């Protein structure tokens, strides 16, 4: 695998996100009466990206699908109470992050059986997975949850700091400092693994 390239130009298309809450919820107008239809539209546009995000966090595809599904169910329940329905994507993104935290907490607290769900990857994809990539992801998953989330939102979703701050309910300066610390920790971890 080549690692010297720059970030792919088609990032938003590849992970299914536009990177903008407002753009993501353009089809979900505040006046929409049918909340099921509104949530379904949102799901169709963003489920893939959110499942992939949760998969990065959890390393378990079935658990990732569960977290995202529950996040959309929560959105569906609370749809009438959303102050600004245009921010639904931000809401569901926060729900996914919270769901991932909960799943990880349960996992660490109770010998979570990672293999209980459907296979995380097919045999084919397992062959394609390089050791180096696994090392990076392993190192990422060992970081504190806040650092892990900031790095995933910044380097996978390419979200700007203000949207990361909104999704994680922290300040922008905290986003920047956390990202810096996370990258440093990641660098150290990878160096240690290599050595």
């Amino acid at each position, binding site marked *: 695998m080549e690692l010297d390239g720059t970030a792919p130009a088609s990032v938003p298309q590849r992970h299914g996100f536009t990177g903008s809450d407002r753009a993501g919820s353009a089809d979900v107008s505040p006046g929409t009466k049918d909340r099921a239809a509104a949530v379904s539209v949102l799901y169709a546009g963003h489920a893939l990206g959110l*499942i992939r995000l949760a998969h990065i966090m959890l390393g378990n595809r079935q658990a990732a699908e569960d977290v995202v599904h529950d996040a959309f169910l929560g959105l569906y329940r609370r749809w009438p109470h959303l102050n600004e329905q245009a921010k639904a994507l931000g809401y569901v993104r926060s729900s996914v992050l919270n769901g991932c935290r909960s799943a990880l907490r349960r996992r660490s607290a109770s010998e*979570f059986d990672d293999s209980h769900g459907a296979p995380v990857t097919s045999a084919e994809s397992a062959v394609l997975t390089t050791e180096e990539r696994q090392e990076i992801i392993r190192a990422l998953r060992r970081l504190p949850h806040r650092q892990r989330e900031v790095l995933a939102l910044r380097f996978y979703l390419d979200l700007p700091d203000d949207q990361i701050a909104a999704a994680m309910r922290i300040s922008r300066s905290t986003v920047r400092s956390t990202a810096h610390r996370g990258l440093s920790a990641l660098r150290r971890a990878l160096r240690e693994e290599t050595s």
Partner: protein
Amino acid sequence: MNRTEDRLRIALLETAEQIPPSAVPPLELPDEVVGRVRGSHRRLGGPPRRWPSALAAAAAVCLIIGLPVALAGGKGRVVPARPFGLLAQFPPYYVALQQAPGCGPCAPDNARYSTNQDRAVMQSTVTGNTLATIAAPKPYGTFAFVQGTANSRDFILGAQRLSDGFPYPATKLYLLHLNPSAKPGHRARLTALPVPLLPGASSYELTWLALSPNGHLLATISTRAANNIPTKLRVFDLVTGRSRTWVLPKWAPSYRDVAGPPSWSTDSRTLAFFDRTMARSAELVLLDTSAPAADFSTDSRFVSLPRPPGTDEFSFLPDAPLLTPDSQHVIESVINPREITPRGPEDAFALNVVNLRTGKVTQIRQHSQIFYVLATDPSGSAVIVATGNLPPFAKSFAIWTAHGTTPIQLPADTIAVAW
């Protein structure tokens, strides 16, 4: 941009792409199925879910499950109770899950999860005496599953942390062994099974358990509490620690379990259960758990069962019919519409046992009220039923056979029984 950031970005993208766009499950938000409202035990937009889940609860518990029928207050045809001698031929012990004293009638659908500190009470079938009372070990606070085994001295108990059900709690499985010759207070031993904690994940519910007759294999069925998410059947080898998983290709048309309670064949190789995705007929699934493919369609054989003439299945009961632990009989609750009069049902409800080999139908009971089957002996010829309402609101409990009825002593707060 430095090298670490580049590597991280590419690793994230490539990891994410392990999930192809086609893998996104569809989202369905029908009014009646969306999920549980935290703390209220109701589903959004639908009727109270006490029925199916409580029923499933009792079922989960014993591998047997819930068919309503009626015991108390019926007219005329209730057979007089037989002496205890009749009970001697049945499994000698049963275990009941009971709510902690003072809890009152709490959540009725707590066989999949529990908001109470439910404990397990082992009792003698013949005398009704309590032989052992077991509380869930720490860090778990309650038992939510109980299932009998072939030797009638071992029971599988599922312990959980207290939960309001959403997200569903993980389940730790224990083996409860009874030594009848030991002194009171030392009769029961609780041992953790060599099975990983069964995660509740975000929405998966552990719905059924079944231990093979040889005691080596434990089957679990987990159902997703939403549409279009496949049910998973898993078999743990308690000797080697290995496990195999089958993903059922179908999903339920509504909030129902796809698979009914499983039963093992006597050689501990085949797992039998009902496919309940068909609304008004039953399809028996025989899954060869020793097949190498671990593919549900390849490893399974499907058998359509005839309906007994002149009967209709309870269309509102997701758990009927029930396969007995010997896989040779089907217990089903049926209703005869001709017996429903303007004044109400008169002997309209019946409990039948169908012999799968001969096709012979034996009616255990006929009644004018609904009752709940909580447990059955291996042949299905004797059942433990709750009457009056679904546990923990039941008024009384009894053992039914085609020959008579014997009341058994269980507290009103009993929520599940395994034989």
